[in-house]
């Protein structure tokens, strides 16, 4: 149980990285990776929301939607949970933790449309039907994987922004090529833990 949990979490962070091998959350990955500090802020906000939304979505799916045979509504239910959670978190943080709010506040509204959050909730709770502890741990690990990927990309982009490259490759194209090379490196870790 613990061994398989560790290997699932390792896969979620590195070899099955949410951005680089599952292709989810690419919009913020490309959009918010210009500066390292912004990238880190976005990454931590994603971990935070992903962990909390996995708890609420799991409870909602297993105790409300499944008993009522409404499981086909999971997409709408989850996205509403995530959207309202983000809004609530924003208000709570603003009231009780101004420092955390000033660090994460700007990124919170963007997170509603981050498909990594909804995608992780869908795959952990609906497609794989993990139990409560599993789905929480996998969500946190997935968020850590997102943080790792976006921070690494931000570091590389500091260099590529100054490099002398063909004009048509400036901006997004070179970032995508960089991401491809990172994806190869991350895929190289698959198979370490079977």
């Amino acid at each position, binding site marked *: 149980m613990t061994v398989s949990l560790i290997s699932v979490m390792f896969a979620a962070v590195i070899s099955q990285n949410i951005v680089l091998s599952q*292709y989810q959350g690419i*919009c913020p990955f*490309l959009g918010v990776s210009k500066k390292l500090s912004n990238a880190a802020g976005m990454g931590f906000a994603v971990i935070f929301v992903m962990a909390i939304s996995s708890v609420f979505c799991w409870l909602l799916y297993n105790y409300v939607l499944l008993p009522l045979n409404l499981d086909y509504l999971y*997409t709408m239910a989850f996205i509403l949970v995530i959207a309202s959670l983000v809004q609530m978190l924003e208000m709570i943080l603003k009231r009780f933790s101004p420092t955390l709010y000033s660090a994460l506040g700007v990124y919170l509204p963007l997170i509603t449309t981050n498909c990594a*959050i909804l995608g992780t909730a869908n795959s952990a709770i609906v497609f794989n039907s993990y139990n409560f502890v599993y789905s929480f741990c996998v969500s946190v690990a997935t968020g850590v994987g997102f943080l790792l990927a976006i921070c690494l990309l931000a570091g590389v982009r500091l260099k590529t922004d100054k490099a002398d490259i063909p004009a048509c490759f400036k901006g997004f194209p070179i970032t995508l090529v960089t991401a*491809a090379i990172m*994806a190869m490196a991350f895929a190289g870790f698959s198979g370490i833990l079977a």
Partner: protein
Amino acid sequence: MDKRKVKETLLGGLLKNNPTFVLVLGTCPTIAMTTSLAQAFAMGIATTFVLIFSNLFVSLLRNVIPDKVRIPCYIVIISTFVIIVQMVMRRYLPDLYSTMQAFIALIVVNCIILARAESFASCNKPLYSMLDGVSMGLGFTAALCVIGIVREFLAGGAFAGMKIPGFPAMEGVGASAFGFIAFGCLMALFNFVIRKVNDRKERLKKKELPLSEGKVGTMEEAA
């Protein structure tokens, strides 16, 4: 209806405001769902359907939805149509649906749809909003299909599932990393072509300026 505005709205999504190559929105399905032409086309059409109807309903309800809770309202409208797509695909295209399941559900958070609801449909009339949905959706579908054709050809030497004789499959191109490279290089190519076309237009303008003295109407033709 104003003809010029219709034309602008319809053509905008295909080239000038292409959601994939110019606005760089909705990148997740662009990379994940383009390993074959069939998948890319299905994803594009599904997104277009959701985009047209969410634009229509957001536009119809634009005077009813209060400003403060508009995002949750848009999301409810969008996810309704996503659920319809899910049900139809599960019934009529079960094989394709099983490979695309994860990303069909994620159409809800596709930024193109929310961006068009927020920036276009919420301040335009229903008919224009539908036209905008058609144009944006087709621009997205076209971009996805181009990437899909290139990736399918390179990875398997095939076109739309049919093997082309004489072109062997390339090892490793099927790997996940290639999606990023293919998208990046095609975007660079798109930028390159647009830049060349614009340069040419400007050069033509400059050339004709001195000649146009005494000739009436040359400037307009050049423009």
